[in-house]
């Protein structure tokens, strides 16, 4: 592997912290994120509630920690699903002959021809607000970049000596894609994946905020912002935390992606 630079190392640490947060955050939460406690509603940060309570008296810190599982976990799931679908389609285009290539690329162009998040809003909204619609909407609108990269790299490898040799040896298109294209694709796919992971976090929170995503009382960060917005005047701090959480996660993942891309570029040069 490549040597880790200082920035890269701290980014890796940060991403690991986020993963740990999504996995173990809920265990660290001091109280039940959905426990309603009306007498103690809209409490400021401090005694008993680290970050205060929301309009229904729920502990914001606990909701934030549980929210990591929704926001990060769902984003991870959705972007991984897109990775699998997009890569498969891209590889089919690369090895499947002219007709398959034409077909896959026209479909990809069509899906790319519309801003993904707007399409996701339409799809999730029409299918009815639920976590399932959210996953469907973000996956359907989130596979195209992988397909393009997979096809592009695949086509560039097609004239490589070892691919020609495999073809001559009678190796099936599937095996060529699996053993010769996929490993070579991995670095580029990982760069795309970090970008799509970050986009998915933003998408989930935006859809949640618009009311088309994860539904209350589940503590998703976008949904929390939707709640907090109403009490903007009395408890403005409530609105800071979930947005900050989204920002930090997206920033960390973007930086990790940048570092990864630089590392790959360096690797290629040497």
């Amino acid at each position: 592997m490549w040597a880790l630079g200082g920035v890269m190392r701290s980014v890796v640490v940060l991403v690991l912290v986020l993963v740990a947060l999504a996995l173990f955050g809920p265990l660290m939460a001091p109280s039940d994120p959905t426990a309603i406690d009306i007498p103690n509603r809209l409490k400021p940060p401090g005694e008993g509630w680290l970050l205060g309570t929301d309009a229904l008296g729920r502990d914001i810190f606990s909701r934030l920690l549980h929210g990591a599982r929704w926001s990060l976990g769902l984003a991870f799931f959705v972007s991984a699903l897109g990775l699998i679908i997009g890569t498969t389609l891209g590889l089919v285009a690369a090895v499947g002959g002219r007709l398959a290539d034409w077909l896959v690329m026209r479909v990809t162009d069509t899906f790319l021809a519309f801003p993904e998040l707007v399409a996701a809003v339409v799809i999730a909204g029409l299918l009815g607000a639920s976590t399932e619609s959210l996953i469907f909407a973000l996956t359907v609108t989130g596979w195209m970049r992988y397909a393009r990269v997979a096809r592009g790299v695949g086509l560039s490898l097609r004239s490589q000596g070892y691919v020609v040799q495999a073809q001559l040896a009678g190796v099936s298109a599937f095996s060529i894609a699996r053993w010769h294209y996929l490993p070579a694709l991995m670095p580029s796919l990982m760069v795309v994946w970090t970008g799509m992971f970050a986009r998915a976090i933003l998408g989930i929170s935006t859809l949640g905020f618009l009311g088309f995503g994860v539904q209350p009382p589940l503590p998703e960060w976008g949904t929390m912002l939707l709640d907090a917005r109403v009490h903007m005047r009395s408890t403005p701090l409530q609105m800071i935390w979930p947005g900050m959480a989204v920002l930090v996660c997206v920033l960390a993942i973007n930086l990790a992606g940048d570092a990864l891309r630089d590392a790959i570029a360096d690797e290629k040069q040497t």
Partner: protein
Amino acid sequence: MIQIVASLIGRAVVVVAAAAFITFALLWNAPGDPALAIALARYDALVDADLVNQVREEAGMSDGFWAAFQAWIAPLMTGDFGNSSVNGRPVLADLLAALSYTFPLALFALTIGLVISLPLAVLATRYPGSLLDRFTVGLASIGVAIPAFWLGLLLILLFAVQLSWLPAMGARTPYHAILPALTLGLGVAASLTRIIRSGILEARGKQFLPAFRRRGVAETVVARDHIAPHAAVPVVTVIGLELAFLLEGLVAVEVIFARPGFGSFLVEAILARDYPQVQAAVIIAALIFVLINLGIDVFYRLLDPRMDVGLGGRDA
């Protein structure tokens, strides 16, 4: 050239047609009875089975998917998007009215983005790696990671609630556009700064520039005649990208600022299950988006006929 442009236009038509078909298929398969939803929206509580059936007949929904699709697409070909199933008004007129709010806002935001990002990127790249450069890169990285709707909420909180400097809700005066445009513009500025910065650095690293400098060509001339054209290609690509970003941001931003416009139109149409409105919004948005990207593609071809870019030019 004409041949290439014709094939690009052909692809654009396919894209818009596919968007129309997918939207229709989605509406058709959405949970619940669309006829019932329309009837409810139109006649409120007075709905009975006859009324639902009547709505179904009118929309050609009783004869299955293809019949309904044809009943919908045929008038569309003549530019007739039908009437809203909620308020009965022609959809196109309402949609165009909404766009008349959105276009100036988008332009305003794009201007803010350019005004901030261009000087910042140019200054930052004067001494790459300097404190100013790193500060710019850091700020831009944060800028692209901020959710647009949250930034909007923060701006409302600061400028409307705490300081009471600017109005936040609605679109009564031109001042009402400042906060939403700033919200979108800061996001645009962040991503533009990143891309212009790396565009300048890349152009500067090109082989031929040191040769010009050695020949004593003035620094400003080098910048104007040789760096700028190289930076122009990514900038045009980015405007295509920013457009997607703007449209995505608009949806949430118009909602939080309670501004009329394309985003609010779309979200309200979805919430009300006003199918003619949703369909019209999707198709018009696809059309605008595809047309602008088509223009960008044609621009590329004029710049360099050998360049092969896909429709949209959105893959970096």
